[in-house]
């Protein structure tokens, strides 16, 4: 274990009459730790993906991390779970890239950070504050349920997150736990502690008028380790977990129409051949939603669309689906039956739009001025390029080309040039805008020009 740094992650404790005698822990009780490990890793993956804006956990990051218990404390039924991560040793060749910069360690270190946060998330969710527990993905709840599987009604388990080690010099509050790292590791940016809800928004946010729940209201941020309640996962909480995990009765489900799109992460069409299922399933990670992917059941007629899209795009494919979302009484998505499946066009790397022109204002104003020249851009783009250039570039550079565009034969371009000129003074500019307001053949241009004149 000398190749690893070991950090305290959390304290796991069993309590109840059976443990009061302090004669050790039954082997069957230890099985629960497996569920706890899976739950920690899965929550950490969600946190890591969102913070790093990446779809997949890098190869080896999970394997590089060890979660271990070393011993039970004498005379008690509690143990510390330790997190082991590779030492960021400069001489280790496997941990260095082509130019000697650590390439894997940053990912491993940030994943280890996410595991520390995952421990805090689980502790917070189990403490029963708000609706955090119900927001966790069902598979994670199932693992938490397994964590207390062998316990009797008068027994409970608790976890207490120790808190993240500090990778940077401690602030005023002082470190909760610290150790020395080489400089390379200290440069890793620590993600800000994010509110819990940021990561676990339910997919099935209520539609207008469907629920009084106000998802727009800010929720409290993640509570510091020292102030967190240590949850007691007693029989009542275990029963609650069971309810959350149990499949709801069909009669309890509410069906609403939903439309969403996202990248495909799994496809299963075996059911068709084996006759086990009426149709295939596809799992997608919906855009704008973080957390667990959504499993979509699609109809047989869509199999060709799904499989050929995957084949053509080497498995990286985005779909847009509309169908019946089956929601339980808490508004959680339990089933999604797609009625329409459409392939979403792959993003064009050479795409042009307002974002591109905004970027040119900052990075390459000359290029933006070139784009304003006749015949370079399509009018639907030129209109926005003209407005954005006028808004962001100095009068001396941009007014000339914009005045030219006021005489463009397409009204959409003249309107864009007008908006570009509204921030620039000068007799010639005002005269030209007035000319358009009074004599332009397009009613839209005349109205836009009148609006610009009013504010001058």
């Amino acid at each position: 274990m000398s190749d690893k740094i070991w950090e305290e992650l959390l304290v796991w404790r069993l309590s109840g009459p059976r443990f009061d005698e302090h004669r050790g822990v039954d082997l069957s009780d230890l099985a629960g730790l497996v569920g706890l490990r899976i739950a920690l890793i899965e929550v950490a993956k969600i946190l890591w993906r969102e913070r790093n804006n990446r779809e997949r956990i890098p190869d080896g990051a999970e394997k590089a991390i060890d979660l271990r218990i070393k011993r039970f404390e004498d005379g008690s039924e509690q143990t510390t779970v330790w997190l082991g991560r590779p030492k960021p040793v400069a001489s280790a060749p496997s941990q260095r890239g082509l130019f000697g910069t650590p390439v894997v360690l940053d990912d491993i270190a940030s994943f280890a950070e996410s595991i520390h946060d995952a421990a805090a998330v689980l502790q917070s969710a189990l403490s029963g504050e708000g609706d955090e527990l119900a927001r966790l993905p069902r598979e994670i709840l199932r693992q938490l349920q397994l964590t207390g599987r062998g316990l009797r009604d008068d027994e409970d388990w608790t976890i207490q997150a120790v808190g993240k080690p500090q990778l940077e010099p401690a602030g005023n509050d002082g470190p909760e736990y610290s150790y020395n790292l080489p400089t390379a590791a200290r440069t890793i940016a620590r993600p800000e502690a994010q509110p819990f809800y940021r990561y676990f928004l339910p997919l099935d946010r209520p539609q207008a008028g469907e629920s009084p729940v106000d998802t727009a209201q800010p929720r409290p941020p993640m509570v510091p380790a020292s102030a967190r309640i240590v949850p007691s996962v007693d029989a009542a909480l275990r029963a609650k977990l069971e309810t959350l995990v149990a499949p709801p009765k069909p009669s309890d489900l509410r069906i609403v129409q939903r439309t969403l799109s996202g990248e495909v992460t799994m496809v299963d069409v075996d059911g068709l051949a084996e006759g086990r299922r009426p149709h295939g399933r596809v799992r997608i990670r919906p855009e704008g939603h973080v957390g667990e992917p959504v499993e979509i059941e699609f109809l047989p007629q869509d199999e060709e669309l799904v499989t050929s899209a995957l084949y053509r795009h080497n498995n990286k494919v985005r779909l847009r689906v509309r169908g019946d979302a089956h929601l339980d009484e808490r508004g959680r998505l339990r089933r999604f039956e797609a009625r329409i499946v459409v392939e979403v066009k792959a993003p064009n790397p050479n795409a042009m739009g307002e974002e591109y022109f905004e970027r040119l204002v900052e990075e390459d104003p000359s290029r933006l001025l070139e784009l304003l020249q006749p015949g370079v851009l399509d009018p639907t783009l030129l209109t926005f390029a003209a407005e954005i250039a006028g808004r962001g570039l100095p009068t001396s550079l941009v007014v000339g080309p914009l005045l030219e565009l006021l005489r463009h034969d397409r009204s959409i371009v003249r309107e864009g040039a007008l908006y570009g000129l509204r921030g620039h003074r000068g007799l010639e500019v005002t005269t030209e805008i007035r000319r358009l307001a009074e004599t332009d053949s397009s009613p839209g241009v005349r109205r836009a020009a009148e609006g610009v004149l009013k504010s001058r």
Partner: protein
Amino acid sequence: MTILLIRTLKRLTAVEESLATFATLTFGSYKDIEVLDLDLSVYLVDDDEEQVTKVRTEHCASFSSPPLSHEASLTLHGFPVEIAEIPGATDFSFTRQQHREMRFIDNDELLKVAAVVKGEFERRQRFTTAEQMWEYINQRLIADDEEWRTLCDNRKKKKWKKWAATPLGQNELPGTEDV
């Protein structure tokens, strides 16, 4: 009272174009003009000038510079389209709460709505003048509105503080100082 689904209207002249160009100019995505935005960002408001001004001003203050003339909006109400309640990203709780997404399955479905909107273009427009926005902000600042106070104190939004404090028509225009 009629409910509106307010969306920024980028070009008044769009209506003079073909349906495809109208849709591109009105619903084309920010990143790629060729791609229609199938999750249209809108705000759910009552059909009165006060609410439209509030939404328009809060949206503008959150995402852009102070207005130099009018700000035009288009309302997309009245279609049997899925409307998802997605919290907005503005600096104001009202517009965060009132934010919605109209969800279309594909371009064809969006184009059907675009065709109706184009046909009813005049009555679906809502204008907010720079004067209305300036007056609204100053009214909020006089009332010591915490959200507006915070925005104006934000160093990244200093243009807004200056704009609100200067009588209309006397603001320094961007670019002018470089002549």
